[in-house]
């Protein structure tokens, strides 16, 4: 099975994240780049599917040069090779542009199964997997907390507000995974060393037959008109419990008409 796992580099949420004042896009230099957390679950799931069914796992990352750190991490976990979609023309692409670029690349490199995290911690739109399914015209198997492949049949449990849906489809397909689907492995020393020798193919917009008019900031379907740091919340009242903390909290709730 030819599995492609889409991995995004995002700013570390433990550092202060910013937008750039010039073009109002994410400031990727202001914070350390890390693997989007939910994508680690995607890499793990891809590796487990490969271990169970054979085949190959290819990492696909769209991002600037520094995203190669993220690719190395996924390779060190055990993926076989990588494609790095890197081109200045892609800078500032919104979800529509990004999904076009990734879909074109996926068509070019081929796949039986695309796996990705259900959401990124930076943009948090949660729409990319659905958009890929739409653009690639393949089944959308998203928000999975369980994936089972049997020949060309694939079934998932799709997490819902009330529990989950059992969903069935045939390969090729797009799967997005939620946290708790598995426990991502840590790269071993051997894995880290091996990753250095694994092939990483760099593709630009023209190589992947991406329509330049559909990607980049200028072609986005939406724009940030302005932004500002959220005003700090007004300092609250903090009391020490001296046997009456619960009663005092109740007084506060009553003053706000919650009780």
């Amino acid at each position, binding site marked *: 099975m030819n599995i492609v796992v889409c991995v995004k580099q995002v700013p570390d*949420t433990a550092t202060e*994240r*910013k*937008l750039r004042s010039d073009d109002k896009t994410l400031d990727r230099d202001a914070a350390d780049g890390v693997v989007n957390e939910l994508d680690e679950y995607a890499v793990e799931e891809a590796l487990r599917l490969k271990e169970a069914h054979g085949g190959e796992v290819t990492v696909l990352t769209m991002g600037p040069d520094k995203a190669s750190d993220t690719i190395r991490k996924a390779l060190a976990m055990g993926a076989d090779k990588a494609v790095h979609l890197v081109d200045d023309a892609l800078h500032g692409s919104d*979800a*529509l542009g990004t*999904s076009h670029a990734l879909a074109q690349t996926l068509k070019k490199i081929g796949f039986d199964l695309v796996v990705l995290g259900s*959401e990124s*911690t930076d943009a*948090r*739109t*949660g*729409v990319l997997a*659905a*958009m890929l*399914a*739409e*653009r690639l015209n*393949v*089944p*959308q*198997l*998203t*928000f999975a907390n369980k994936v089972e492949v049997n020949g060309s049949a694939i079934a998932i449990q799709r997490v*819902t*507000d*009330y*529990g*989950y*849906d059992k*969903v069935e*489809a*045939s390969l090729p*397909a797009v799967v997005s995974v939620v*946290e*708790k689907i598995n426990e991502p492995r840590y790269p071993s020393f051997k894995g880290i060393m091996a990753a250095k020798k694994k092939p990483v193919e760099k593709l630009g917009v023209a190589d992947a037959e991406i329509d330049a008019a559909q990607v980049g900031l200028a072609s986005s*379907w*939406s*724009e940030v*008109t*302005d*932004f500002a*740091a*959220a005003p700090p919340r007004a300092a*609250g009242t*903090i*009391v*020490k*419990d001296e*046997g*009456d*903390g*619960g*009663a005092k*909290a*109740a007084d*506060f709730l009553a003053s*706000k008409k*919650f*009780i």
Partner: protein
Amino acid sequence: MSEVLVLVEHVEGQVKKVTLELLTLARKLGAPSAVWAGPGYSAEAKAKLAEYGAEKIYVADSADIADYVVAPKAELLAQLVSTASPAAVLVAATAEAKEIAGRLAIKIDSGVLTDAVGIGEDLVADQSIFGGGVNVRSRVTKGTPIIAVRPNATPVEAAAGAGAEEQVSVAVSDTAKTAKVVDRVKEEKGARPELTEAAIVVSGGRGVGSAENFSIIEKLADSLGAAVGASRAATDAGWYPHQFQVGQTGKTVSPQLYIAAGISGAIQHRAGMQTAKTIVAINKDPEAPIFELADYGVVGDLNQVVPQLTDEIAKRK
């Protein structure tokens, strides 16, 4: 006045509160047209939608619409956009509705904004990003704006609309029928409100200490008619089911009142609750970052404070 399509969120035939919020918002932007997708439509649902301003109600209640993941609903909306030429399409910022919005955006070549917490008359949306650290205003620049709005972000106001019903027949394409829902499994969650919709959320974290002890969080929640949430530390420890996790990799909630008990307030958690209107924190560590967000904080042992609070609420009812 142009129509504004509002995709109705419903469960077991009941219209969810977020839809009433969307209808309230839509009235500022044009003439609200509710779109009912899937089975369960009733006179009761119709009355509710009209009460909150739906001038039209498009009903596509065939089973096909709901039996396949997301794609048929996107086809339905695309069809309505082409016939009704609405000023905008509003959906709730739930996992599924955002996916519908995403697929619709491609079908109608239009921009999509997710997790709006407000929309101006000029269709500029307010968003809160980076775990609540930055406020952004953004707008769609191509096509028909599609905006996913966070539940609880809009105060609901009734204002009667005509509620003119229009049956819509959609021939769901074969390509939209490739991911089939073969079973819906309901997990027991009792009578509590749904986490993302609840006006009040009570969450427990590492400080709760055990699965058994989550009962004190549940009792407090029940005394307030609230939903129960949990921090990642608590769900990772297996003390509370993962689907109740509030935070960056879990649910984002924006309730009127959020009570955090035994939660330190790391960014992982803050990203999921920072836009709550009022925050109350109970934690034994006076240095816990959750107190920086709290409107009211109690430094103390939650095993003492939470039951006392629950008792006090019962007394004052």
